[in-house]
């Protein structure tokens, strides 16, 4: 069923496989370290993070870290197809770089496209090697779906930006050496026109990282507070006040990654086994619902295959990233609901007292990570309508107004 490799592709595949054989262990299915820490203590997460970093370094040293990046920035100078082939092969091994590839693929293209030569030379290689870990400092309490409404201030004083404000939903900030930050450098122009994209040293004493627990209880995310943090003008990527263009490059990469990347645990099979175990698999209601979830899971898989095929063939992908993201999240949520419903009264329990250690309960609580995280479903549906279908935008009331004159939640107005 698989598309056949060209001879060049086959040779590349076998080279990748040989290198992997020599440098990694095959997946065992149970107890793989790459599935993440078993418990969510800071220590366990730190240890996991170290393993991820080590693997990233190994890959870089072998020439497999950023296959499609140009050689002059430390990449392999290969193709997008080779990147996919490598990933297909790597999937069989018990290795992962965790969140690192995500921050690399957000930061790398932005620096290559918008950064100056000095920035590229300084940052791109340590970025790929995992020597310097990055985090994305975009979201703010007042700027959620409307990211451009951000209020973190960057005031230019004597050739330095002085940054004050708060970011949140920052993944891996507790492990990061640097962050890429969007801040308001000019409040006197419309909101998209007064933002700068800054590189910030996370070890600055004015940077305070605090965990932000999610409704499920996870502590992957952080809030980051900035108090008089000084950033040299040389750390501005792109133009001063022109950071929105740089941000758009990273955002475009982000939404495609969410829907297309994560296959994760084969949860429908788990659902069937679970239902059988609970004596519910003979129940026609359960069978029909699980079949519905499985249909969605497979259809999502077909779309992921389609995307990969297009990339392998060098065609531009004809599947919209937002379509994949919404479908992925809804499928995951549907399976979570079924997993909980199958349990009946046992669904009341949690943690150690629950079946499967409360896996399905946690999945239900984790819904917002799909329906809100990485852009709400509502924002993605707007995007599908406008970008993929060409439907007109809503009338905008915030485009022509200087940022400081915008109506915000803090005004407390109800605009009735």
């Amino acid at each position, binding site marked *: 069923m698989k598309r056949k490799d060209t001879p060049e592709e086959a040779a590349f595949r076998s080279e990748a496989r040989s290198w992997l054989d020599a440098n990694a262990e095959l997946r065992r299915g149970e107890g793989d370290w790459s599935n993440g820490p078993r418990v969510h203590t800071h220590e366990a997460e730190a240890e996991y993070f170290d393993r991820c970093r080590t693997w990233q370094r190994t890959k870089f040293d072998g020439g497999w870290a950023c296959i499609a990046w140009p050689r002059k920035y430390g990449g392999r100078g290969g193709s997008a197809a080779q990147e996919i082939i490598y990933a297909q092969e790597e999937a069989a091994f018990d290795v992962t770089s965790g969140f690192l590839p995500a921050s690399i693929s957000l930061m790398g293209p932005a620096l290559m496209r918008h950064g100056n030569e000095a920035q590229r030379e300084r940052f791109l290689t340590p970025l790929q090697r995992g020597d310097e870990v990055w985090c994305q400092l975009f979201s703010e309490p007042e700027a959620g779906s409307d990211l451009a409404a951000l209020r973190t201030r960057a005031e230019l004083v004597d050739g330095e930006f002085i940054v004050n404000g708060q970011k949140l939903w920052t993944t891996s900030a507790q492990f990061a050496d640097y962050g890429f930050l969007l801040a308001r450098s000019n409040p006197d122009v419309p909101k998209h026109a007064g933002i700068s994209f800054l590189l910030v040293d996370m070890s600055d004493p004015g940077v305070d990282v605090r965990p932000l627990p999610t409704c499920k209880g996870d502590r992957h995310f952080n809030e980051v507070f900035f108090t008089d943090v000084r950033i040299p003008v040389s750390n501005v990527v792109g133009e001063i006040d022109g950071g929105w263009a740089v941000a758009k490059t990273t955002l475009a990469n982000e939404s495609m990654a969410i829907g297309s990347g994560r296959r994760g645990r084969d949860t429908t099979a788990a659902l069937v086994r679970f239902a059988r175990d609970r004596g519910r698999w003979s129940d026609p209601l359960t069978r029909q619902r699980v079949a519905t979830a499985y249909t969605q899971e497979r259809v999502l898989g077909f779309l992921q295959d389609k995307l990969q095929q297009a990339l392998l063939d060098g065609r531009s992908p004809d599947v919209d990233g937002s379509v994949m993201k919404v479908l992925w999240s809804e499928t995951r949520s549907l399976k979570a609901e079924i997993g909980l419903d199958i349990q009946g009264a046992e*669904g009341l329990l949690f943690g150690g007292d629950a079946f499967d250690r409360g896996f399905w309960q946690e999945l239900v609580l984790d819904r917002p990570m799909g329906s809100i995280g990485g852009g709400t479903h509502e924002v993605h549906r707007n995007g599908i309508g406008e970008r993929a279908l060409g439907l007109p935008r809503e009338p905008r009331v915030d485009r022509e107004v200087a940022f400081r004159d915008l109506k915000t939640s803090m005004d407390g107005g109800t605009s009735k």
Partner: protein
Amino acid sequence: MSFALSSEQEEFRDTLRRFFAESSPSTEVRRLMDTDRGFDDGVWKQMAEEIGLQGVVIPEASGGQGLSFAELALALGEMGRVLHPSPFLGSVVLAGRAVAHAASEAERSELLPAIAAGELATLAIAEPDVGRWDARGISLEATPAGDGVRLSGSKSFVLDGHTAARLLVVARTPGSRGEEGIGLYLVEGNATGLSRSRLDTLDATRRLARVELDAVEARPLGDPGNAWPALEHALCEASVALCAEMLGGMEHVLETSVEYARTRHQFGRAIGSFQAVKHMCADLLIGLEGARAAVDVAVDAVVENDPELPLLASIARAHCNEAYYRAARDNIQIHGGLGATYEFDAHLYLRRAKSSQQILGDTSFHRELIATELDRATA
């Protein structure tokens, strides 16, 4: 039907709203989530002594207030609004109504005053793995021994089962099946052979326990072999009470959503001016209006002793189960990133809504009861 509150009822509700707003702010709820007992003894005592809430439907002769089920429902609504953590549902509703319907007059006058005074009782009916709140789900047998019986086996999902001073255990006469042979047995919390352990719960504002009985001495109440109809009646009332509690939660959730949608601005506009958010709120109101009507009708059926009560209770459950869960879920969605944090209370309502779907029979259980009623009605 009494769709409108009397002015006394309105006053009663307002008093309770103030009481619970003061005694159960979010900080208190969260503090109690981490305690073993799961509730505040002081507040519980206040409820009993100052407001007489534990005795709201208990006759005055038994130390209660002798008010109607409508007032009980109002009280549960106020508790549901703030996720007030207490053994009220287990002790006052489940145990209290089981005693009221299944015990003899003498037993009632012995047991109800204790409940009204705030002593903790609970009803142990569902069993591990099976998890059903109906006659089919009861396997535990009561073996005759002397004047009473001895019970051996397990119960689970027992509300506040680890802290209750008295357990009312539902068991059957050996060899009996179905609705035959069911009885209600009183077990003291300190009885020999009784061991109880708190369970970790999705909804940390409601305590459940597992109860193991090893030849525990128990005292039969009422007419032990024929208690099912009375217990079924008590369970219907408990379902209605649960719906009243869910209704309070729904109201709170919708108010929160609407308030946020009116004041949170994105793209220079209040987010509630966007149809995606506005229509989500509208759907929640449709669910809530229906829930309110369904609860009113079911409460009235309890008050009027309407023979349609089992059907009306299941209709209320089937509707509220869906409406509350959807409201709690969409409330998170409307709050966006804020809704996804542990610090914000939205997920506590989601946990409560989800768990309320699964206790005292889940949605498919109640739908099947409705279908069975339709069998009869159209035979």
